[in-house]
């Protein structure tokens, strides 16, 4: 039972159209435009800020689709203005060309990702110059800017895995495993903050899993949570297991 945060985020009208046409293998003309627009509005609502460019671009596409579709509903198409019709088809071709371009770069990005993942398996040596030669350097800070120092600070303080040879951290922790681990560790820890618990977290998913595990334990009444201010530090305190009933079946935890 692993938790993966994987959401299908459409970051543009072309993305959405591509997805609708290719992934779902639907003929756009067999589904209602209303449902496409609903899906799009949902996506926009999920976004942090409503992006005007996305919203208007989609309206344009939707309008074109509506126009194309409305033609189909006309009983007799013979009296259509040929000029108008042509313009419409050009519009369609333009849209098709853009969709093809979008698809091309989408696939290229998958290839880049694969390259990145392969390359990440080979770690470079970044140790730098040996001390004995450092004295020779005219100016160690040659070419270093305030910006570089800032970046170095962010690098240094970014969450990173700690050297832990006994509990080799797995990226794909499950809530059930984490709950078990916490039941073992928390009694000896006294009061501890979530931040302290997750200092070794490799990625955000892990923090989320810890968070869920703590909620699970809280629900079962074996820990006490205190948070003095909104967004403040969350303190966890072990209360103990009821000797008679023990814990509930955490293995069945489904999130």
């Amino acid at each position: 039972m692993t938790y993966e945060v994987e959401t299908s985020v459409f970051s543009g009208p072309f993305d959405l159209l591509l997805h609708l046409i290719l992934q779902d293998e639907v003929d756009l003309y067999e589904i209602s435009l209303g449902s496409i627009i609903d899906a799009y509005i949902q996506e926009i609502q999920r976004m942090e800020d409503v992006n005007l460019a996305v919203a208007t671009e989609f309206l344009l596409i939707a309008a074109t689709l509506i126009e194309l579709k409305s033609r189909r509903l006309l009983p007799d198409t013979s009296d259509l203005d040929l000029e108008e019709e042509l313009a419409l088809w050009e519009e369609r071709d333009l849209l098709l060309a853009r969709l093809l371009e979008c698809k091309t770069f989408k696939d290229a990005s998958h290839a880049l990702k694969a390259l990145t993942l392969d390359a990440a398996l080979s770690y470079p040596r970044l140790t730098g110059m040996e001390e004995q030669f450092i004295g020779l350097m005219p100016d160690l800070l040659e070419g270093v800017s305030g910006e570089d120092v800032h970046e170095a600070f962010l690098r240094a303080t970014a969450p990173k895995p700690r050297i832990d040879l006994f509990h080799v951290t797995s990226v794909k922790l499950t809530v059930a495993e984490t709950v078990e681990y916490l039941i073992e560790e928390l009694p000896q820890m006294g009061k501890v903050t979530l931040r302290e618990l997750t200092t070794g977290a490799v990625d955000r998913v892990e923090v989320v899993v810890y968070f869920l595990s703590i909620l699970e334990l809280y629900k079962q009444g074996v820990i006490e949570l205190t948070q003095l201010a909104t967004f403040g530090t969350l303190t966890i305190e072990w209360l103990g297991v009821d000797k008679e009933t023990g814990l509930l079946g955490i293995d069945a935890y489904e999130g």
Partner: protein
Amino acid sequence: MDNLQEYKRAIEAVILVSDNPVEPTLLAQLLEIPKTTVEEICDALTQEYKEQGRGFILANVAGGYRFQTDPEMAPYVERFVLDGQGSRLSSAALETLAIIAYKQPISRMQVSAIRGVNVEAVIRTLQQRGYIGEVGKDPGPGSAILFGTTSLFLERLGLNALSDLPPLADFVPGADVVEALEGGLRPEGFENRTEMMAGESQSDVRSED
């Protein structure tokens, strides 16, 4: 060939203490030998390490040479190193990066036009992470900033040069995808008309016959 052995050793030593890939031209200057000799020596070293089954490799990335761990040793090194390779890029960021990589130099507006969204935030992220940088200004009106990929981008992808990127042509959708897309956009009742129009409409991407 005592000299060759000496060059070999010197190259190993210099690459060891550098925290950036060392360019062959620089090694050639330091040793006062032709660049091609440097490249031959480095190729030979790469081969030697491989044959001897070393835990490290001599990698040729971003236009230079550096020592890296053998990818097979990743499980051990992962447990040990403090700095991971940085968090992963979102798919939005990757797509934007792909556009910039293949179409550089390119302006923010041009990327935006391809992606169909405002890409300002994504471009800022990519710039902060050092994958892309400003490489010039558009000579046209407005003189928009043009972006391109950096050597860090090449390092992260394990490539020596941009020309090592897989050709974009490899990703152009096949006939099946074109057909599916076209089908999705085509009103059914118009099938017969499409043929008629194909000749007149210049921008038709695919011929019907």
